[in-house]
C-alpha cells in the first residue's frame, strides 16, 4: 500500500540574531518545521501504540505511528520478563489444551479487583478480561513468526522474551500494512483547539526539526513514569504521555503507586537488570534473604509461601526488602543480599538448572538474560558469594484518567496501556503486556470511530509557537545549570522521600525540593551546545519537565494517602483503611497548578469493602486463601518452564 500521509515542508529563512553584547541569540524560528497530516496519530511504538494503529487502520483510517524510538525496539515491552495471559476458558477455545478452565473470566476479574486493593475501575477490568482472549490469540500468531520460543504456563499464561514481544508488535503493524511510521521523534505536546484534539507537536531528535502532526484523533501509548535513580526500564519512561495530557487539561490519577522488583545493583555494567527477580522465581528455595548486616530478613511463613508461589511476590518482596532498605538496615548501596548457602547443594542445583534451561530457551545461550552474560553469577552461586540486590520500579500504575473505551476528558484523545490508569489500582499483578495489547486495540478502535464522526480541527499556530518558545529556553540561558545535573538533583530527592517505604516528613521534604527545582533550577537550565541535531541536553530538559509534573502529582497523592495500600507503603500509616481512603487520588490542572481531588472507582460487580486492617499485609495474607486462588499458580513460572525443558530432554533420551 502506498504512503497515505501527505508531507509538506516549511523551511524558514535562516536569520542570525545577536544579543546586545554581540553574542549569538538562538531564535526558534531558525528551526525547520514540517507538517504531517493523518486521521489517527498513535504516539509510541511499543504494544499500546502499535495495537492502536492496527485497530484504527483496520477501520480504514489513515494512521501514523510516531515514536521516540523505533518500532519493535522501543518502549517497555522489550524489557518485559515477560508474560501475557487470558482466562482459561478462552485459552481452551483458542486451542490451548493445557489451560485450566477453572480460571473463568469471572475469577480473573475478581483477582484483578482484589489485587488492585479495590481501586480498579471495574468497567475497565471487565474490558481487559473480555478482550484478552481474542487479542492475545491474535498476538500469539505474530509471536510464532518471531521464531522466539513462547512457553505456555498453566493455568493460562504465556511466557517469552521481551525482545520477541517487541518484534511481534512490529510484525502485526507490517502485516496490517499502510501504516505510516515516523521514528526517533519525541512528541512534546498535544495540540488542542476549540476544546478538542487537533494534533501534536514533535521534535525529530536526529535532525532537530519540529514536526506538526495534524490529526483527527490522537492515541497516547507512551508508557509510564520512572522518577527514581535506580530503574529497570528503558530511558524513555519519563511520563511524557501523562504530562502532555495534564498540560492539555486532562486529569491524571494513581500516581503514588509504583511496582518495585528485586534488581541487580552491581556490577554497574549490569545495574538495573531484573535478573534477581527472575532468578528468585527459579532458585527461591536456595536463596536466603539477608539485610545489610547479613541478618536474615524474616517474612511470615504464609507470605513467604505466597512470594514463592505467586506474583504477589512483587508486593511481598517490595514490602519486606523495602523495610530493611528504607530503615537503614540495607547494604552499602541501598540493597539487601541474596545468600546462596553451601548446604544443601541439591537446592542450588535445582534453581540453577531451571535458570539454565530457561536462558537457553529464551535467550539462546546458557546463563544469558536479555542480552547480557551472567556466567559470572553462576560461579558466584556455586561458590556461595552473596549477591547485592536492590529494588527498582518496573511499572507505574498511575497515568491518565480514562473510561473503558480509553477515552479521556479531552475529545479526540485516547490513552491505553501504562500511560493511563484505572485497570490495576494500587497493585498490578496481572500482566502489563496483556494490558498494552488489549487496551491499545480498544483505543485504536475508539480513535477511529471518533475521527470518522468528528472530523478534523485546525491547528492553533499560537499554541505551536508558545510550545516552541517554552522548550527552547535552554538555548538562550547562558551559564545556567546542566539538565543532567538538575535531573540528578531531582532523582536524589525522589529517592530520599518518595521511595518504597514513605513517611510524612520525607514526602514533605521531597515535595518542597521538587517545588524549588521547578521554580529555581528548571527555568535556569542552559544547554552547553547550541546545536539542534541530536542535542540530548534538549531532550533531557523536556523529559525532566514531564517527570516534574508526574512526580509532583505522585508525591502530593502519597502525602494525602495517610494509609498503606498495595505498593504505596507508609511507615507512619501502616494500616489499610477502607473506611477513609477507598478512593483514587486525581491530579487536575487548575490553570497550570495541580489541584488534588478524589474519585471513587466504578463498581460493576464487586461491592467496595469497608473496615480497616491494622497492617496492610493482613489483607495480602487474606488473599492467599491457602492458595485456593486459581491465579495463584500462575507465578511459578520457572517450575513450568523447567518441566517443559526436562520433558524435552527426557523425550530426546528415549
Amino acid at each position, binding site marked *: 500500500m502506498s504512503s497515505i500521509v501527505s508531507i509538506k515542508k516549511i523551511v524558514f529563512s535562516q536569520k542570525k540574531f545577536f544579543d546586545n553584547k554581540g553574542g549569538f541569540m538562538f531564535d526558534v524560528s531558525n528551526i525547520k518545521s514540517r507538517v504531517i497530516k493523518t486521521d489517527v496519530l498513535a504516539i509510541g511504538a511499543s504494544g499500546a501504540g502499535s495495537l492502536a494503529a492496527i485497530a484504527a487502520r483496520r477501520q480504514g483510517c489513515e494512521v501514523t505511528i510516531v515514536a*521516540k*524510538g*523505533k518500532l519493535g*525496539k*522501543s*518502549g517497555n515491552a*522489550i*524489557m518485559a520478563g515477560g508474560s501475557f495471559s487470558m482466562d482459561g476458558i478462552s485459552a481452551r477455545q483458542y486451542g490451548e489444551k493445557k489451560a485450566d478452565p477453572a480460571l473463568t473470566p469471572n475469577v480473573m476479574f475478581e483477582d484483578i479487583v482484589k489485587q488492585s486493593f479495590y481501586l480498579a475501575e471495574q468497567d475497565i477490568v471487565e474490558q481487559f478480561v473480555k478482550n484478552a482472549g481474542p487479542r492475545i490469540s491474535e498476538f500469539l500468531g505474530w509471536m510464532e513468526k518471531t521464531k522466539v520460543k513462547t512457553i505456555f504456563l498453566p493455568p493460562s499464561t504465556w511466557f517469552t522474551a*521481551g*525482545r520477541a514481544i*517487541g518484534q511481534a508488535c512490529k510484525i502485526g503493524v507490517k502485516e496490517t500494512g499502510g501504516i505510516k511510521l515516523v521514528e*526517533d521523534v*519525541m512528541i512534546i505536546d498535544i495540540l488542542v483547539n476549540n476544546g478538542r484534539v487537533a494534533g501534536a507537536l514533535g521534535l525529530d*531528535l*536526529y535532525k*532537530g526539526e519540529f514536526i506538526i502532526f495534524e490529526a483527527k484523533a490522537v492515541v497516547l501509548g507512551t508508557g509510564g513514569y520512572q522518577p527514581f535513580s535506580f530503574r529497570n526500564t*528503558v*530511558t*524513555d519512561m519519563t511520563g511524557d504521555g501523562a504530562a502532555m495530557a495534564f498540560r492539555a487539561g486532562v486529569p491524571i490519577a494513581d500516581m503514588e503507586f509504583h511496582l518495585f522488583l528485586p534488581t541487580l545493583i*552491581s*556490577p*554497574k*555494567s*549490569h545495574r*538495573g*537488570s531484573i535478573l534477581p527477580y527472575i532468578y528468585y522465581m527459579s532458585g527461591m528455595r536456595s536463596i536466603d534473604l539477608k539485610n545489610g548486616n547479613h541478618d536474615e530478613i524474616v517474612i511470615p511463613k504464609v507470605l513467604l509461601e505466597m512470594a514463592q508461589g505467586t506474583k504477589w511476590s512483587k508486593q511481598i518482596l517490595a514490602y519486606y526488602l523495602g523495610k530493611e532498605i528504607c530503615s537503614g538496615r540495607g547494604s552499602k548501596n541501598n540493597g539487601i543480599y541474596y545468600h546462596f548457602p553451601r548446604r544443601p547443594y541439591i537446592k542450588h542445583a535445582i534453581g540453577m538448572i531451571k535458570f539454565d534451561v530457561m536462558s537457553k530457551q529464551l535467550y539462546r545461550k546458557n546463563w544469558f538474560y*536479555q*542480552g*547480557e*552474560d551472567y556466567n559470572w553469577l553462576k560461579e558466584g552461586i556455586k561458590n556461595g558469594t552473596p549477591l547485592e540486590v536492590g529494588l527498582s520500579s518496573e511499572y507505574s500504575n498511575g497515568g491518565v484518567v480514562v473510561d473503558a473505551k480509553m477515552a479521556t476528558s479531552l475529545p479526540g484523545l485516547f490513552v491505553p496501556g501504562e500511560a493511563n490508569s484505572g485497570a490495576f489500582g494500587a497493585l498490578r499483578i496481572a500482566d502489563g503486556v496483556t494490558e498494552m495489547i488489549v487496551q491499545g486495540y480498544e483505543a485504536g478502535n475508539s480513535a477511529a470511530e471518533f475521527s470518522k464522526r468528528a472530523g478534523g480541527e485546525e491547528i492553533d499556530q499560537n499554541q505551536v509557537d508558545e510550545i516552541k518558545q517554552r522548550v527552547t529556553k535552554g538555548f538562550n540561558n547562558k551559564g545556567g545549570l*546542566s*539538565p*543532567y*545535573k538538575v535531573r*540528578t538533583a531531582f532523582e536524589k530527592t525522589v529517592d530520599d522521600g518518595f521511595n518504597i517505604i514513605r513517611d510524612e516528613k520525607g514526602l514533605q521534604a521531597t515535595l518542597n525540593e521538587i517545588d524549588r527545582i521547578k521554580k529555581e533550577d528548571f527555568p535556569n537550565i542552559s*544547554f*552547553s*551546545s547550541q*546545536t*539542534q*541535531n*541530536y*542535542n*540530548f*541536553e534538549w*531532550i533531557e530538559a523536556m523529559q525532566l519537565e514531564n517527570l516534574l509534573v508526574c512526580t509532583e502529582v505522585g508525591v502530593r497523592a502519597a502525602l494525602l494517602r495517610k494509609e498503606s495500600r498495595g505498593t504505596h507503603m507508609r511507615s507512619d500509616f501502616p494500616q489499610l483503611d477502607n473506611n477513609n481512603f477507598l478512593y483514587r487520588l486525581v491530579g487536575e490542572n487548575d490553570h497550570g497548578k495541580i489541584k488534588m481531588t478524589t474519585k471513587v472507582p466504578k463498581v460493576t460487580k464487586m461491592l467496595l469493602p469497608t473496615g480497616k486492617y491494622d497492617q496492610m499485609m493482613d489483607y495480602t495474607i487474606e488473599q492467599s486463601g491457602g492458595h485456593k486462588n486459581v491465579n495463584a499458580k500462575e507465578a511459578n513460572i520457572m517450575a513450568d518452564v523447567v518441566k517443559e525443558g526436562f520433558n524435552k530432554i527426557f523425550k530426546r533420551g528415549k
Partner: protein
Amino acid sequence: MMLNVNIYRNNKQDNKEGKFDVFKVHIPDNEQWNALDLMRHISTNMDASLGFYYHSVCNHGICARCSVRSNGKVSLACVTIVPNSGTYTLEPVSEKRCTRDLAIK
C-alpha cells in the same frame, strides 16, 4: 588509576572536520562499567555537549541501538565492558551515518 578516553567529536551541522577529545576518567578498581556508563559519566560530569545515543535505551543488550566503535570494534555500548585504566577509544560506527559525535542515525 585513570582511563584516558579518546572520543571522536563531529557535528554535521557545523560542517567542520572531526577531531578527538581526551577525557581522563577515574573508574574505581572494584567497579565494572560499560561504555554507556562511561559516556553518561562524561556527559554528566565533564562535558554536557557530548552526543551519544541515549534516548530509548534498554541498557541490557535488547534493543541493539547503542552501537559504537569501541577500540576500533563495532559493539553495543551497553554490553561492552571498558577497561579501568590505560587508553580507550570511542568512535561512531560510521562517519557517514554520524549525526553528532558518537550518535548515528
